[in-house]
Each structure stands twice: as structure tokens, then as C-alpha cells.
């Protein structure tokens, strides 16, 4: 008998639109000292399993079949009071966001000592000793002093260490960790995972770690269970699942993970996931509206040239200008993008990369510098009508597919808006035909036009965004983290689509991302930004093989290593 057994678990969420089966006939077991990873995309039911084990299933969800055994003792049938006693005492929990898992009004000491005393009944002095000892074990320097601090006085990584200490304080037999590192930076993620793995081995604790991230799986787990639509599709040792998966879903999931080490021509095998089909209709671009000759001026030299761009934000507003406190979000940035090129801009959050994009498309007015597009400095243009001519040539795809579409408008009107505004078609009938062709072209199907955005998934919404951006027949496309809100398989589909469109239409792109592997797949040249400054611009392959700036090296070192992942079926880009 294993430490933790989950047998034939079935969890249903009844709703007035019918019952949703979140988890369907799932059996798992965890041995002492073992790390079991549960991996899957959003909606796969992986978190629901974790919640069911600790007895915190959100209503109206209920376990309709199966049981959970902890050391052969059935725990899912216990009363609420008994379940509460098991939680924390025998099953520890680590949640995603370390800020919300700690009480901001209590010091770390109060929280730890209270929990230890409650579960182990050691008395105050002994509990305090143990609390300090725990903080030392999870790697917090000077634990005797730090224990007096409040949660907000710790950094994100340190705070997650405190959460781990809190999970460990009653010496639980099993730990459930739900996306424990998703809210953390990559560098801290590696340390936390190492810590969790070591503690698990030392104390012979069984760990169930729930994540969507193949990097985490590769780093920490012994065995992996792959979930898809509530079902367990495959289970096995980490080496086997990552290196030689049997199930087609696992294969497609692994092939969709962007690799830091190689550049692919396209992501293969991403059709397993039931999105709406890939291209349903190909357009003959030589005759279709979308491919027709555009009335744009021909350009010599780079299409976009930024010169000494500066953007300042007010951090402390005041009525008088001289009392305001300013902050340079973008500081003296210059680079060129040639025609037909995909230029990547990479950097951590707050590095100013999105601000650059917003200045290029005139959403922000730069404090200083030039935005030269097709030989014209856009910052000098005062008339809106004159600017419209340039706006038509450049469009933007936004990060969040849930807020980038107006929920009160039909997809038809959303995609038609730029065509109507710029009067690119002569009749309403023609507009509708163009919209339907566009929707077809991005793989949604023309029927999508009469529906509302909320009827679509994140990936489909991003396709609508792309269709809207193409609707002005632009020659320059700005993609601001276009896939960071999407699941990995959907991300692969959207990246494939962007690549195809770029080639077909000869688009020039500014591609912004914090994700280096994605940058490697998409871009010809890359600029690296740090705190508003551009620290390096190199051809993509050069950047990955021979980084020049120290900061670039640092970023590259922090990338998750995915060497264990199967390379089967990948088409590499010709060097």
C-alpha cells in the first residue's frame, strides 16, 4: 500500500447548463519520498484533484465516486472536523501565490508557532525553537531575526520558502503543491524546486505537485501523470514520459513546448487539441483583397527606425509640473527593423518593452526621440488624419485575449471596425465577405462572425485579434506577448499561424516576449532590454550561442533546461 492512494476518483460540478465532470476515473498513488507530478493544461482537472485530497473541494463540486486513502485509512468520508485535523497535520499544502497564503497582519513567528503548537502541542518555547529551525531548513538566512518580520518584508522567493516551512511545521506525511513556482521568477523557481525535492527526500514525505509547466516537471518529479479533459491519459517515470511518451496527447503536448536549444521551422503535431480546425480555406492572395497591392510608399532601408527614444511616467502626481516625480520607463532606446524581418524584444517585466511598442503605434507620445516609420517621423505628425495613413500600415496584437476584444460587440463588428473606419471596402456586403474570409484564414471559420467573444476560448480569441489586426492590410505587426496568456499547445498553434502569415504576407514584425525559447522560435534578430535600456541587439542565433552582454548571459542561464524532452517529430530550421 502506498502512502497516498487515490482510487477511481470522479468529481462532478453540477450547474444549470448540465453536469461538468471535472475529474473522471483517476487513480494515482504516491510513495514516501517520492515526487509525483500532475501535468495538464487549463481545465484538465489537475487542481481539482489536489483540492479533493485535502477536502477543500469548492461547492458545488462533489466527489461522486472513488476514495482517497492516506496510509490505508479512508479520508474522504471523514467529517469536516476530522478533515480539518488532517489538513496541515498530516497533509501539508503549498499554493501558487505566496502573498495570499500568508496572513499579512501576523508576523511569520506568530503564524508558525500557532500552527506548530496547534498540531504538535509542544508548548510555546519548544514551538518557537522548532519554528526557527524550520526557517533555517528552508534556507532563510538569520532565521532568529527574520522570524519577527511580517510577510510583506520578505521577497517573493523568501515568502514561498516561509509557506513551505509552514507546510512542513507539523511534519506532514504528504505535501500537495499546486503550481508552487508559477508566481515566481525563473531564477527563484530553480532554488525553490531544489529545496522542495531535498526536503521531500530527507524527510521521506510524499509530494503531489500540480503544474502546467514541463520545466518544473523535468526539474523535480520522479513520476508524472498527464491529465487531459479530466482523464488520466498517461502515467510513468519522468524519463519515460518526457523522453518517450506513448499517448498522442502527451506527444503533442511535449512537441509544443518551445525549446531553448533548437529553432524549429514549425511546431509539429499540435492538432490533437480540439480547437477549431487549422486553415479551412486557403485564399489566393494574388487576387484576394488581403493580398492586393497596397498604396503604401516603397521604403529604402529599414521600415522602422527608433532613435534615442525616451518615455517618462509620473510616479508621484502633483498639480504643478515641478513638484511631480518622474521615472524613465524607456531610456535612450534606438534600433532598426528591416522590411520582412521579425525583430524580438525580450526582457523581464518592467523592462519597458511594452512601452516601446506603445510608442511605436502612437498610443504613448515619447518624451524625446524619433519614431521613423517608412522614412517619416511619426512623433512630428500633429494631424490625426495624416496619422491614419500610418496607423493603417501598422497594427498590434495584444497580450490578454480576454480583455482585447469588446465583449458587447459581435466578432463581425470587431473585425470589420478597422475596415469600416479606414474605408477599405466599398459596400457593407464586401466588408462582411472580407471579414468571413479573414476568419477563415486564421482558422476560425466564417460562422464565428455572428457570435460574441465570450463564446470562444483564449486561443480562438487570439485568432480573432489577429484577424482584426490583419483587417487594415498592415505591413508592420506589433505582437505584445501574444501567447503568454495561453496554454502551451494553443501557444504553438498561434505561433505557427503568426509564422505562416508573416511568410505569406511578407509582414515585418516587432515581437515582444519575456520567454526566450519563444523568441528563439520566432525572431530573426533580438534586442534585450533591462530597466528601460537596450543592452544588446544581435541576430537570434548569435544571441543564444554567444551572448555579448552580461545580462543576456544571466537570462540565458536562468532558462529552464528541457534536455530530457523528446525531440521526436520536430522539424528543425535549416541552419
Amino acid at each position: 500500500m502506498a502512502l497516498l492512494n487515490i482510487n477511481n476518483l470522479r468529481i462532478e460540478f453540477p450547474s444549470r447548463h448540465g453536469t461538468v465532470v471535472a475529474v473522471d476515473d483517476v487513480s494515482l498513488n504516491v510513495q514516501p519520498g517520492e515526487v509525483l507530478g500532475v501535468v495538464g493544461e487549463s481545465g484538465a482537472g489537475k487542481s481539482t484533484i489536489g483540492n479533493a485530497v485535502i477536502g477543500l473541494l469548492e461547492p458545488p463540486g462533489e466527489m461522486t465516486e472513488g476514495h482517497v486513502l492516506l496510509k490505508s485509512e479512508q479520508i474522504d468520508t471523514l467529517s469536516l472536523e476530522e478533515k480539518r485535523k488532517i489538513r496541515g497535520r498530516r497533509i501539508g499544502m503549498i499554493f501558487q501565490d505566496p502573498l495570499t497564503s500568508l496572513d499579512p497582519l501576523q508576523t511569520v513567528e506568530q503564524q508558525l508557532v500557532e500552527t506548530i503548537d496547534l498540531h504538535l502541542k509542544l508548548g510555546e518555547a519548544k514551538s518557537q525553537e522548532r519554528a526557527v529551525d524550520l526557517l533555517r531548513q528552508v534556507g532563510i538566512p538569520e532565521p532568529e531575526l527574520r522570524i519577527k518580520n511580517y510577510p510583506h518584508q520578505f521577497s517573493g522567493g523568501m515568502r514561498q520558502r516561509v509557506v513551505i516551512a509552514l507546510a512542513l511545521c507539523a511534519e506532514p506525511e504528504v505535501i500537495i503543491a499546486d503550481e508552487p513556482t508559477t508566481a515566481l521568477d525563473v531564477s527563484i523557481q530553480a532554488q525553490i524546486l531544489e529545496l522542495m525535492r531535498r526536503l521531500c527526500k530527507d524527510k521521506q514525505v510524499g509530494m503531489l505537485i500540480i503544474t502546467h509547466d514541463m520545466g518544473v516537471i523535468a526539474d523535480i518529479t520522479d513520476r508524472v501523470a498527464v491529465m487531459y479533459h479530466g482523464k488520466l491519459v498517461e502515467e510513468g517515470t519522468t524519463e519515460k514520459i518526457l523522453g518517450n511518451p506513448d499517448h498522442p496527447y502527451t506527444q503533442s503536448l511535449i512537441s509544443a513546448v518551445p525549446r531553448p536549444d533548437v529553432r524549429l521551422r514549425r511546431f509539429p503535431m499540435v492538432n490533437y487539441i480540439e480547437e477549431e480546425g487549422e486553415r479551412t480555406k486557403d485564399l489566393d492572395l494574388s487576387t484576394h483583397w488581403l493580398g492586393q497591392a497596397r498604396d503604401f510608399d516603397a521604403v529604402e532601408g529599414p521600415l522602422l527606425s527608433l532613435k534615442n527614444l525616451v518615455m517618462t511616467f509620473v510616479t508621484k502626481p502633483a498639480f504643478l509640473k515641478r513638484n511631480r516625480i518622474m521615472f524613465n520607463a524607456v531610456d535612450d532606446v534606438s534600433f532598426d527593423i528591416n522590411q520582412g524581418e521579425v525583430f524580438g524584444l525580450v526582457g523581464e517585466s518592467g523592462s519597458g518593452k511594452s512601452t516601446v511598442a506603445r510608442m511605436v503605434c502612437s498610443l504613448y507620445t515619447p518624451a524625446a526621440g524619433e519614431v521613423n516609420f517608412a522614412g517619416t517621423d511619426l512623433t512630428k505628425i500633429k494631424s490625426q488624419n495624416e496619422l491614419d495613413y500610418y496607423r493603417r500600415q501598422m497594427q498590434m496584437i495584444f497580450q490578454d485575449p480576454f480583455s482585447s476584444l469588446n465583449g458587447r460587440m459581435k466578432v463581425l463588428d470587431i473585425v470589420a471596425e478597422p475596415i469600416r473606419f479606414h474605408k477599405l471596402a466599398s459596400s457593407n456586403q464586401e466588408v462582411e465577405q472580407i471579414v468571413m474570409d479573414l476568419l477563415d484564414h486564421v482558422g476560425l471559420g466564417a460562422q464565428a462572425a455572428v457570435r460574441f467573444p465570450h463564446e470562444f476560448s483564449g486561443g480562438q480569441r487570439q485568432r480573432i485579434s489577429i484577424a482584426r489586426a490583419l483587417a487594415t492590410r498592415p505591413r508592420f505587426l506589433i505582437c505584445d506577448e501574444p501567447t503568454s496568456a495561453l496554454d502551451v499547445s494553443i501557444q504553438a498553434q498561434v505561433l505557427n499561424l503568426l509564422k505562416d502569415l508573416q511568410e505569406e504576407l511578407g509582414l515585418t514584425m516587432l515581437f515582444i516576449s519575456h520567454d526566450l525559447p519563444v523568441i528563439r522560435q520566432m525572431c530573426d534578430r533580438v534586442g534585450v532590454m533591462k530597466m528601460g535600456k537596450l543592452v544588446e541587439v544581435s541576430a537570434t542565433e548569435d544571441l543564444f550561442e554567444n551572448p555579448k552582454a552580461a545580462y543576456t548571459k544571466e537570462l540565458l542561464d536562468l532558462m529552464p533546461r528541457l534536455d530530457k524532452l523528446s525531440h521526436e517529430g520536430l522539424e528543425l530550421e535549416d541552419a
Partner: protein
Amino acid sequence: MEQAIEKSRLQRFLDGDLWHSFKRNPVAIISFIVTVIMIAAAAFAPLIAPHDPFNLAAIDIMDASVPPAWQEFGDPRFVLGTDDQGRDIFSTILYGARISLIVGFASVIFAMVVGISLGLISGYVGGRTDAFIMRIADIQLSFPSILIALLIDGVARGVVPKEMHTDLSIYVLIFAIGVSGWVQYARTVRGSTLVEKNKEYVQAARVIGIRPLTILWRHVLPNVMGPVMVIATIHLALAIITEATLSFLGVGVPPTTPSLGTLIRIGNEYLFSGDWWITIFPGVALVILVLAVNLLGDWLRDALNPKLR
């Protein structure tokens, strides 16, 4: 095939959460029915009312102060009795509710138009424009709204020539109540606009080149209307009460066009002489109307924003 996918507005409404929540809430259903009945009764007053209280020829002073029909000396022609001039109370309530509702709806719409416009501009433009509009709102909020309505009414009486008082008084009343209520809308809309204008769909519209006024009208306005509808419903009840209060104080509609408030005032003078029906029945009608509208507003608020509970 497209027709099959495209749902009609009615179908989408019937599938929606709002209708679902309405169906399961008896209080909402009852208050909705009561509101609809009262509005219909007021709207069709000339058809329903047994007497015309404005037709001087039909009023007989001999019928003055007749008690309700079931009481001693009651007259079956006057179910709820008559007032001091012989007007049928039931008919007068119907006509009075009409004035009350017209003033209520009109002043709510007036306040909505002013409040939403200023709120949208304030939130979208920001900076000094925002500061200016919001400071005015703050100043107005530091006075009780009834005082502002009284003030506007008083000023209007001073400015408008005397012979036009009777004709204009209802418009003045609408203006006064409307102006005293715009701040609520402006503040709510400004708050929602601040959130919406930073959403990416607004930025996408700006990248296309859409002009600010079109963005406000087509993109922002539909997305900030939810909370506005809630305030409007609750404000309607408040506007009806304010109208009644002003009329009770004698600064509202002239006594020749009785609203619920004027009726209560007229009855108030006879309350201690035993003619209780003149004031009680219009009072009860006012309470029922306001309560129904208010409960409807409460339900709407809970249904649209479950977190506010």
C-alpha cells in the same frame, strides 16, 4: 446555417444569468409585477379612473370629504372617498401617480445623461478636466440633495415670469431633481471608465485610429452601463420621493395638477379633523410604488454584481 448559430436578443436574454436569477427570486417577481401594474395604471389613468378630477364641471362640492365606501356615510361611487373639494381619491391617486412617475423618469433620464457624459469625459480625459469635474461633484455632495432641489426651484421661481409658473413648474421640478442626482452617475461611470480605458480593446481601437468620442460611445459606454442601470432603478425611487417631498412642501407641481405629494399635503391639513383617507391612501400608494422599485433595484444590484452582497 448562420441563422442557427445567431441567437436572437430575446433568446440570449432568456439563456442569460439575469433572467435565471429573476425567475428564482420571488421578491423580484412580485416587485416587478407591482411596478408594472402601477405604471400601467398611471399611464392608462383616463381609461381606468371612474372620475376625472380635472374636469371642474364633474366635481360637486357637495361630495366633499366623503369617507371610503365601506365606512358609515360612504358612497359607492367613491371607493376610497373624496377630498375637500369633492374629487374622487382613487382617481386622483391614478392621475397623481402619473405626474409622480413622469417627473421621476424624466429627472432620472436627465441625471443619467448629464452624469454619464461628465463621468465618461472625466474618466477618459483625466488630468485637470477630471479634477475640475470631480471637485464640483464633491462640493455638490456636501449639500443634501433636497436642499439643492429647493434652491434650484427657488431660483427658478425668481427668474421665470410669474404667469409662466404653472406651465413651467413641472420642468423646473425635473431639472431640479435631475441636477441634484447626477453626481452618483458621474462617479460610478468615471470609476468604470478608468478601468475600461486601460483594457486592451480600447487600446486596440486607438491603434486603429478611432477617435475618442467614437471610442467612448461605441466601446466604453456599453461596458459601463451595468452599474448605471442599478443606480438608475434605485434613483427612480429616490426621485419619486423627492418629488413628493417637494410637492408636500408646496414648491413642486401646482395644486391644480395633483401628484402624490400634493395629495398628501392636502390631506395632511384634514388629518386631525378625522378625514384620514385623504392623506393615507396616497401615502400608501407612494410607499408601495417606492418599495417595489427599490426592491427591484436591490435585486438588480445583487444579480449584476454578486460580490457586492
